[in-house]
């Protein structure tokens, strides 16, 4: 069987068969933003229900499905894919490569993500969305009323997407750097991507097994988490959090990487303490494996275990703090220009300090006996995940938008977006600290009127609509500048890293000639030389193509003879097999066979097809 290789370069079919990391990055980003709106709408409904005591907007069942899906959506369908969007688009540009190590695997991971998300959401139409919480504790997760079968299969599929993507990025970073780019000359964002990739490679399998065990209990009658057969429900918690804690570093490190790129550009100084920032990221990655049971302080592991995890949790604050101090030292003594990308990075730092401090208070185990499972915890993780990760990712969006689209977003509208979002965010989540300490548990669809919780809940609901408004402002910015925005040019921010040395948007081969790298911030040093006392002296005619030292290997010649990987059907076909297989596992053996065949045909075709022709 020989099918014609797809060749289209325009039109929707070219997007469906693309293996170009830039297009895949855009697809990841757009899909993630759509899910952000969905997850945000779920949150707005929840806030409407909780605005008053004994709320009657939602039934208990609806609320429980919404909070489960809100958590799953924001973590797996928004923050992780937004990180992946940037890894995809920017990674090759930052290391001076033409594409990632495995372009078809890259496309495959996107399609699996999309189909996994759709599969998970289809549950709303097929008997109800999962309602056992995103953390899925057993034995509740095994009660039929929790509908957790879509949860187990959906996350298994999404895990495949993230695992292969992580392998792809790790190999890309290790193997495809431009000549001269040693590890300690890589941009910090690239380092964070590397750490995140290793975290995913090693953490996802543990969750995979937990999910398989849950799935087998639900579908085939095994007893992994069934107390009636002597099983220990706490096993689920160990498996889940062994994944879950490294996962939170997966969520935050990309944003930290972005902040490390943005601050130097807008302070016009290098990142302070580059090696320390890199090693802190690595340290966080390592130490993150030793803290998982801090999610389980109240489950009864005993004082020795609780003490050990209290210590490890406290000490992981040290490298985190070190990063924050290095960022502040980057700003110190700089020439700070308050453009929108910088505002969002500053918002990250300001909000992450709060979230980090509340996190340290959770490590005080006896205090955590009061804090755990209350809104105080909800405050903490929204400060680090929204105030931190989302603000950091928006910083990246505003920073790299000109490179991706070739146009500038409006600074004025951007500033409105930032301030409305910052204020709205704090009005929404600041009160959660108070509510938690004053007696409001989490995951409750209603609360009694006599508990003194009414005022702050109402305030928080108002704040949530401010956040929604800020997002509308962002979309307005996007639409308004899509055709009318100022043309960006190659280097609108006077950047430091390699992506600013090529056109905006980049040609499909990225670099006409692969650069040879001599230092960190190599592009900056082509533009400016450091005189005595660290003063900058612009290099005469620096940064132009003619003066660049290029590698003798891969020559451009206008890009015509550069050999790029060819488009392919097979990643899409193989990916399609997975949701079919999953529906089959729930409903019908025929679909199982159908899905498996589709998957195998896709994989086989992919395997025998050459990567480029």
């Amino acid at each position, binding site marked *: 069987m020989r099918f014609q290789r797809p060749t289209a370069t325009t039109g929707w079919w070219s997007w469906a068969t693309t293996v170009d990391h830039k297009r895949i990055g855009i697809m990841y980003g757009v899909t993630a933003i759509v899910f952000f709106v969905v997850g945000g709408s779920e949150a707005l409904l929840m806030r409407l229900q909780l605005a008053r005591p004994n709320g009657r907007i939602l039934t208990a069942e609806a609320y429980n499905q919404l909070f489960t899906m809100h958590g799953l959506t924001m973590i797996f369908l928004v923050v992780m894919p937004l990180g992946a969007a940037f890894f995809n688009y920017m990674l090759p540009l930052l290391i001076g490569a033409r594409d990632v190590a495995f372009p078809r695997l890259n496309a495959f991971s996107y399609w699996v993500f999309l189909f996994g998300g759709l599969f998970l959401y289809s549950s709303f139409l097929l008997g109800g969305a999962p309602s056992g919480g995103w953390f899925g504790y057993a034995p509740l997760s095994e009660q039929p009323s929790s509908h957790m079968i879509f949860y187990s299969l959906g996350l298994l599929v999404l895990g495949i997407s993230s695992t292969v993507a992580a392998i792809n990025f790790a190999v890309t970073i290790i*193997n495809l750097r431009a000549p001269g780019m040693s590890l300690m000359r890589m941009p910090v964002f690239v380092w964070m991507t590397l750490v995140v990739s290793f975290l995913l*490679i090693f953490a996802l399998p543990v969750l995979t*097994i937990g999910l398989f065990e849950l799935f087998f209990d639900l579908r085939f009658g095994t007893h992994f988490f069934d107390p009636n057969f002597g099983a220990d429900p706490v096993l689920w918690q160990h498996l889940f959090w062994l994944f879950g804690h490294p996962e939170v570093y997966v969520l935050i490190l990309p944003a930290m990487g972005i902040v490390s790129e943005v601050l130097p550009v807008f302070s016009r100084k290098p990142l302070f303490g580059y090696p320390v920032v890199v090693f802190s990221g690595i340290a966080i990655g390592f130490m993150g494996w030793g803290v998982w049971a801090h999610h389980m302080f109240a489950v009864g592991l005993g004082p020795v275990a609780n003490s050990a995890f209290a210590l490890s949790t406290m000490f992981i604050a040290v490298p985190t703090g070190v990063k924050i101090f290095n960022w502040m030292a980057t700003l110190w003594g700089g020439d700070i220009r308050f453009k929108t990308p910088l505002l969002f990075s500053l918002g990250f730092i300001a909000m992450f300090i709060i979230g980090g401090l509340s996190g340290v208070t959770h490590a005080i185990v006896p205090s955590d006996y009061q804090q755990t499972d209350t809104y105080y915890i909800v405050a903490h993780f929204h400060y680090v995940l929204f105030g931190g990760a989302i603000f950091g990712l928006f910083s990246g969006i505003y920073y790299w938008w000109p490179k991706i689209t070739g146009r500038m977003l409006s600074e004025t509208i951007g500033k409105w977006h930032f301030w409305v979002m910052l204020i709205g965010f704090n009005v929404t989540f600041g009160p959660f600290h108070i509510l938690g300490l004053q007696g409001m548990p989490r995951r409750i669809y209603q609360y009694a009127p006599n508990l003194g919780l009414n005022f702050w809940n109402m305030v928080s609901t108002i704040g949530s609509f401010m956040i929604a408004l800020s997002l509308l402002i962002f979309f307005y910015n996007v639409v308004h500048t899509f055709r009318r925005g100022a043309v960006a040019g190659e280097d609108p921010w006077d950047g430091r890293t390699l992506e600013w040395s090529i056109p905006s948007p980049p040609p499909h081969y990225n670099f006409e000639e692969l650069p040879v790298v001599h230092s960190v911030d190599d592009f900056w040093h082509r533009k400016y030389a450091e005189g005595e006392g660290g003063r900058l002296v612009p290099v005469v005619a620096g940064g132009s193509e003619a003066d660049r030292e290029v590698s003798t290997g891969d020559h451009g010649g206008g890009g015509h003879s550069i050999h790029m990987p060819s488009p392919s059907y097979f990643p899409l076909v193989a990916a399609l097999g997975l949701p079919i297989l999953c529906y089959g596992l729930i409903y019908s053996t025929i679909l199982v066979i159908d899905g498996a065949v589709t998957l195998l045909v896709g994989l086989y075709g*992919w395997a025998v097809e050459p990567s*480029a022709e």
Partner: protein
Amino acid sequence: MAVHAQPSEHSTHTSTGLSNAKLGMWAFLGSECLLFGALISTFLLYRGKSLSGPTPKDVYDIPYTSVSSFVLLMSSLTMVLALAAIQRGDHPKLRVSLMATALLGMTFISGQVYEFTRFVQEGLSVRTNLFGTSFFVLTGFHGAHVTGGIIMLLSLFGMSLDGRLPTEKAEAVELVGLYWHFVDVVWIVIFTVVYLIPTGK
């Protein structure tokens, strides 16, 4: 699954000197370590905790399983021979060794199928108790991995017959070999931890 990825037409320069595919396979095997680690941990946690029989002592046939373990171990030898053959350009020997590896793997799987069928007849199914649940899922995952490996071996065999596995593509055999050896090592761990270490129950 980039295992079968063909090296590109031009030799690609890589920062480490190792091919992308090889690095990718090592990363994948790293994640597989955690996968089997979690399954083995589950098994160990539930050892001795079943509320009802049968227990390992009731069903295990250590001599039998030792033989099938030996068969799998031998398949790693033939795998090494296959790689050596293609590296020195001996394609007939390559095919013989690939087929031998696949056949030994199939023998192992058949042995497991027989063993598990007997367990079920003796009253131990995946639903019976914690032992049945954790044992069958662990060994089942391993068996699925062996089966995947057999499919890859037979694919290589077919490609070689078809003339699509020249000496320049020896790395494909090396990568399948890496995977195969890994699966073998996992079995050694499983055999030791699950079968050999006595539970006293």
